């Protein structure tokens, strides 16, 4: 096996193998576990960076194994795939550091980190998948690997959340499976190609292909939390903070959003999707989801639930961007994979820090917490502004591209959706910022832990600050070469190349 074949597999193995070893480690062998975790994450990041570097110079990596006559399992490098796998590799490293700090002394850590690693393997696999079947395989693996993380606490509430999660995601998986079969029976191939694979089959089959599109989008939309398929996401909040962070920033919901991009760009092709009126339909659903998520977020009193509804809303910017049918909007949507990831992971880290350090879960308990934990809350503030879309944060870049794209596509109603959503974002984030910074701290926190001079454990604080800084940087330096935005624009332009 040559290196060009082995590298995609190595990227998968770099998180899978440590995960499997961790399963059998006894609970007390903390050093070995930490080494494996961090080691795997660093190796993976290194391999991904190497792959990106080589791919820019035109090297193509692909591993292919025959699964059925005419059907292969394919993992390969592609611009979009590398974009996503890069994000997941980076955030996995950060989240691993955070999770080690967060779960200190709690039970079942070997089990937790084992499934955590498999979860990341599944994400990387979905990112590198070269056809719909491979994507489906990793999509299902992700469902299975995340379930133990959701029920990790083992309480009745956690198990309930686990059941809800499974009901939604296994059901969604079944829809994707049917859609995949059906598509295969028509096209005879499932490869992801720029411009899609269904164009030659549209004549006379428009309705069948539309039905398949609806099946695929509905199935993948479960993970992407499109309304009305979002119900599992706020319930799954019961999971430990690092899990929520990973779920919301890179793993589950992002694989959903990424899958939508794959269906529109690489399977159907944007021209077919627009020609059949399917992309427009998805854009409407995405717009409804954006507004609905924000409205529900307004009504929340629990910080993590608020963030969950905010995810529901923010995630649909991606679907909206890619379904508007113009390259500018598509770039805005694709780059939001990274932007939303960095901002949301920071916000969940902050929620975790508050819970772990002061026992704060409810928003009303956050009064004056800015003075107790200034660094943490500074990170929160930055990313809250980013979510609202104030320049120069990353969120602004996304909204700008989406808005310009919407006007270019002649869909000016989208601009109103963006404005309304930004106002709603402001309406639920600004009051929190006000009580955090301007109210007097309450005398006693619900459950305070002491970390000497520091405001919280460094293992918790540093990842938070890192991701917040990154969220700032990708906004500030958006137009530099190799920035996520430039990359996303490159990917988007390619989809529209003749």
């Amino acid at each position, binding site marked *: 096996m040559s290196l060009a074949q082995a590298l995609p597999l190595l990227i998968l193995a770099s998180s899978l193998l440590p995960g499997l070893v961790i*399963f059998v480690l006894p609970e007390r062998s903390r050093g070995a576990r930490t080494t494996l975790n961090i080691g795997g994450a660093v190796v993976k990041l290194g391999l991904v960076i190497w792959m990106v570097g080589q791919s820019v110079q035109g090297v193509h990596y692909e591993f292919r*194994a*025959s*699964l*059925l*006559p005419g059907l292969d*399992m394919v993992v390969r490098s592609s611009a979009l795939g590398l974009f996503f796998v890069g994000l997941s590799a980076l955030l996995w490293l950060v989240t691993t550091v955070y999770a080690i700090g967060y779960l200190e002394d709690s039970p079942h850590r070997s*089990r937790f980190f084992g499934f955590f690693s498999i979860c990341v393997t599944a994400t990387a696999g979905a990112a590198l998948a070269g056809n719909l*079947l491979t994507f*489906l*395989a990793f999509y*299902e*693996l992700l469902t*299975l690997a995340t*379930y*133990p993380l959701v*029920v*990790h*606490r*083992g*309480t009745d509430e*956690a*198990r309930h959340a*686990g*059941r809800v999660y*499974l009901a939604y995601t*296994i*059901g969604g*998986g*079944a829809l994707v*499976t*049917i859609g995949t*079969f*059906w598509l*295969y*029976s028509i096209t005879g191939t499932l490869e992801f190609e720029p411009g899609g694979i269904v164009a030659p089959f549209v004549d006379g089959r428009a309705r069948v292909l539309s039905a398949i599109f609806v099946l695929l989008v509905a199935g993948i939309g479960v993970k992407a939390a499109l309304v009305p398929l979002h119900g599992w996401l706020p319930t799954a909040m019961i999971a430990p903070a690092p899990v929520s962070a990973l779920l919301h920033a890179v793993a589950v919901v992002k694989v959903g959003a990424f899958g939508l991009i794959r269906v529109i760009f690489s399977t159907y092709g944007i021209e077919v999707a627009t020609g059949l009126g399917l992309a427009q339909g998805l854009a409407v659903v995405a717009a409804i989801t954006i507004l609905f998520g924000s409205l529900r977020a307004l009504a929340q009193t629990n910080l993590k639930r608020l963030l969950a509804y905010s995810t529901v809303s923010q995630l649909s910017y991606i679907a909206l961007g890619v379904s508007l049918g113009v390259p500018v909007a598509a770039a805005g949507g694709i780059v939001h994979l990274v932007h939303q990831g960095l901002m949301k992971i920071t916000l969940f880290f902050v929620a975790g820090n508050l819970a772990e350090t002061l026992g704060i879960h409810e928003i009303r308990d956050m009064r004056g917490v800015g003075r107790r934990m200034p660094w943490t809350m500074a990170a929160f503030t930055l990313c809250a502004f980013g979510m609202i879309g104030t320049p120069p944060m990353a969120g602004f870049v996304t909204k700008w591209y989406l808005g310009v794209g919407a006007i270019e596509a002649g869909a000016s109603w989208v601009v109103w959706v963006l404005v309304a959503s930004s106002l709603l974002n402001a309406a639920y984030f600004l009051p929190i910022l006000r009580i955090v910074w301007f109210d007097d701290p309450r005398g006693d926190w619900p459950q305070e832990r002491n970390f000497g001079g520091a405001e919280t454990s460094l293992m918790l604080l540093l990842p938070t600050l890192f991701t917040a800084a990154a969220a700032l940087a990708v906004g500030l330096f958006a137009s530099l070469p190799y920035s996520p935005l430039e990359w996303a624009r490159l990917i988007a332009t390619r989809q529209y190349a003749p």
Partner: protein
Amino acid sequence: MSAADPGAWLVWLVMSPLIAAILVFLVPRIAFGIACANALCTTALALAVLDRVAEGPVRYALGGWGAPLGIDLYADPLTGVMLVGASFVLLATTFYAPGYLAQARIDALYWPLVLILQAALNALFLAADIFNIYVTLELLGLSAVGLVALADRTRAIAAALRYLLASLVASLAYLLGVAILYHSHGVLDLVALADSATGTPATWAALGLMTTGLAIKGALFPMHFWLPGAHSYAPAPVSALLSALVVKAPFYVLLRLWLGPFFDAPPEVGDLLGVLGVAAIIWGSVQALRQDRLKLLIAYSTVAQIGFLFLFFPLVKAHTIVQGITLLMLAHALAKAAMFLAAGNIIHYLGHDRIHDLHRVAKELPLTLAAFGIGGVCIIGLPPSGNFIAKWLLIEAAFDSGEWGWAVVVVTGSLLSAAYVFRVIGHAFTLDDVPEAGNRVARPMVWTAFLLSLVALTLGLFAAPLLEVISMPVAGTADAMGIFP
């Protein structure tokens, strides 16, 4: 008869377990050693046969007599896959059994009975005529009943008797069908029958009788009544063998008959069997959801999974169906055996198998729970398990023949199995600070269950070469009818 002669391999696949059965009966002290030697030997032979039949079917006339007077052994790719599956599961249970038997205080009759069962099973897979199939079916049924009755409990005896009764009635129905076929066509050989048995009333009468008999033995809904008891009260390694292999044997015979003499059966009969299969999927899954004993749940899951196999009949003329069904039999055998072995470990540890208390073993038996979970994931049919590929082929067959309703059944059935599998797995995560102390589970028991589940999970990755072998014309049966292009 030299060792390199593939015909001799076929003979030894039956003779080796028979000789071993006699030896362990005479010298029980070295039973385990003999059983291991036999299991390894038959596994090697089965693999060799599978490799050989990839080039074309093998026929061997026992004692040089040949049909119609003598007994013929016959192997084609379908036979090869069944032999390999059977010998793998038997290999696993052989290594598993000593630990379980010692604790459950089951007497030495286990080994001779299991070896006779294996001989009967292999002989059935290799049988070339429908009367020999009857003989092997009887032998298989009797040894299986004996094994169920080994579990020293009243309920097990009752279940064994019910099993015996069902099995005897079924055998009679089958035998009657054989008599009718022989009377009207004068041949018993499957290949000869395939050529001569076309559309006479006698053929259809035989079809009705033989199919009914085999459906009872194969536990097709609503004739599955004997299965949950027999499969759940039996000792764990026996449960694994019964669910993985013994119920597949009558189905294998059905497959042979429907690809041969009954290939032109009225489509309504096929549809009826398919509908019963759907009912089995739904009924089995719903019952599985309602159980609070782990082994009963797994047994009802078998009822449901057998339903999937019967989707073969309405789709019999589709291109990919034989591949799909054969792979499904193999994949289900491996996964189900792993689940029953894992359940055996849990019973061994706790002394019972109440699903509600499953979290108490989580700390001590993580590999066992993993084996159960992986087996369950395979049963659901998630990639990369062999079941996934098999179900893919079933759905492809449904789409090919334009009857996509069956595809919906396959997907719905998989969702139902997800429901009962995760109902069990969910309990393993319940918070519990005081794990219950239990009996130590021997290492081979843990590892055989776990490794078997891994084989089942990765089967899909090795399915491509296997499917290539199966897609070879199944000579003397279906290729005559031209369903294989």
